[in-house]
């Protein structure tokens, strides 16, 4: 009705009307304010001599920093692998109808989530004080094999156990949430086809749960990368400890903290990009078409094809043509 009214008011054809998108003057004003603030910050960063950018530059690729970086990466990767694998096992155990399994998982999560990871790290490191020897044998009977605890659990292993076992408790809750987000009908359909509980979990439920599990796991990985700095307390020379070692010698505390921070920032940025692509992979089948990745957008731009965007030119009257 409205369309035909407009058609009468303007003698031209209704197709020539142009729809104007909403203007956002507030955004422009805000952008100016942010730009000024950013310039001030940049100025302060560059021209305050206390930051000692030349020192930052000297140590950025220093061999002990790079070595520490390697340890940090190794520790992050291994403890996340341990955390994810352990988390999946614990989550499946918690959801099991077997009360022994679900009870054990509940207890594990209760202990490892209920105490600070820093305390757990120190505990693993001082395991030798609790039990100087670890052995394999018959419970309360003879031993077949034994070894000193400190040999069995060197400082890197202690750090890995502390971080990995703690992470497993958190991942268990994330995985459980993911599993429970999958529709009950999926389990029924798989069971009706004769699939076992294990096959149903591995082939049907977990791949779908991944969509819910991946984003928080990405966060956990980024968080883990930074949490590894805690193992400096048990004297494992990772990235932060390497920085500490240098500034305790040279007293150039601030520039070394910046050096270390730059590395952490760089690594978390890389992980964020990785997370984006992993999420895309697990989103397949849930949306009809995936939006293009930033890289695809850039390529398309140079190829001269316009990226699909919301229509600016609405042509009123076309869809209502039948009513006029």
């Amino acid at each position, binding site marked *: 009705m409205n369309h035909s009214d407009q058609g009468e008011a303007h003698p031209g054809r209704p197709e020539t009307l142009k729809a104007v998108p909403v203007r956002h003057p507030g955004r422009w004003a805000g952008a100016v304010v942010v730009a000024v603030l950013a310039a001030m910050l940049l100025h302060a960063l560059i021209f305050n001599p206390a930051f000692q950018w030349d020192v930052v530059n000297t140590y950025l690729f220093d061999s002990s920093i790079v070595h520490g970086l390697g340890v940090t990466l190794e520790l992050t990767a291994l403890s996340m692998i341990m955390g994810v694998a352990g988390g999946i096992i614990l989550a499946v155990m918690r959801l099991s109808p077997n009360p022994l399994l679900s009870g054990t998982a509940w207890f594990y999560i209760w202990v490892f989530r209920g105490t600070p990871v820093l305390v757990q790290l120190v505990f693993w490191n001082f395991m030798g004080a609790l039990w100087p020897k670890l052995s394999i044998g018959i419970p309360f009977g003879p031993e077949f094999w034994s070894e000193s605890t400190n040999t069995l659990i060197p400082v890197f292993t202690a750090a890995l156990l502390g971080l990995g076992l703690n992470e497993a408790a958190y991942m268990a809750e994330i995985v459980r949430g993911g599993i429970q987000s999958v529709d009950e009908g999926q389990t029924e359909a798989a069971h009706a086809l004769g699939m076992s509980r294990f*096959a149903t979990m591995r082939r049907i439920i977990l791949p779908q749960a991944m969509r819910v599990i991946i984003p928080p796991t990405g966060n956990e990985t980024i968080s883990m990368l930074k949490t590894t700095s805690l193992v400096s307390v048990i004297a494992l020379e990772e990235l932060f400890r390497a920085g500490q070692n240098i500034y305790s010698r040279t007293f150039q505390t601030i520039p070394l903290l910046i050096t270390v921070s730059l590395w952490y920032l760089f690594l978390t940025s890389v992980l964020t990009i990785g997370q984006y692509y992993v999420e895309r992979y697990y989103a397949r*089948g849930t949306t009809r078409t995936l939006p293009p990745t930033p890289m695809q957008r850039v390529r398309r731009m140079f190829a001269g094809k316009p990226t699909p965007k919301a229509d600016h030119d609405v042509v009123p009257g076309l869809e209502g043509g039948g009513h006029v």
Partner: protein
Amino acid sequence: MTDLTKTPTDSVPGEPMVRAEGVRKSYGLVEVLKGIDLEVRPREVFCLIGPSGSGKSTFLRCINHLEKINGGLLSVDGELVGYRRKGDRLYELRDREVALKRRDIGMVFQRFNLFPHMTAIENVIEAPVQVKGESKADARERGMALLERVGLSDKAKSYPSQLSGGQQQRVAIARALAMKPKLMLFDEPTSALDPELVGEVLDVMRGLAEEGMTMIVVTHEMGFAREVGDALVFMDGGVVVESGNPREVLTNPQHERTRSFLSKVL
């Protein structure tokens, strides 16, 4: 024509495909099945109708042990569902044994329940490969034939989200058939579909019936029951109210409750 194909099956003697004797099922204090007795013969299309909450879907789900019965006996092809009988005792089967029996019983759900992370053909070959250990190539070849049969060979590489409801349900039927079942259970297969898509699913089911598949169909499609059904049961409040030949029951119901239900749906 329908009557011609049906006449011999009506008179087929022998073991029933499904036999229920006094089947009871309750959720907590609520008893949803209050003693169901019925028999489904091989090659028969057996329709279950009734108002929602009458227990018809629950009964269907008991047949492949998705629901555990609390009383009575239920057997498929001469074997008890979910239990083994030794003397006068029933021993519950292990998950593995239950899964083994489910291979022979296909099920189609109201909400399709296709695996959304797999394409149509992957949905179809999943169980043959994972459960029966068929080679992927063989399963794929048979799977393509099944998709062809439900009219969807061109959609093999589509994900469920890219298919219409009717297409999804046809893939779901192909997926169930891939296990070469001897019995097919349909749980309101057209209730979640747009009216214009109902026909394509019913056509596939009609084809199956003509090939002699034993089918138990929970449905609100009275036209289908009348045309394709060999037997029909009207359930209400967890009991079988009336049963018989669909054409007779639907045109000349004997019970008041059947009459009032049919007057609302026909």
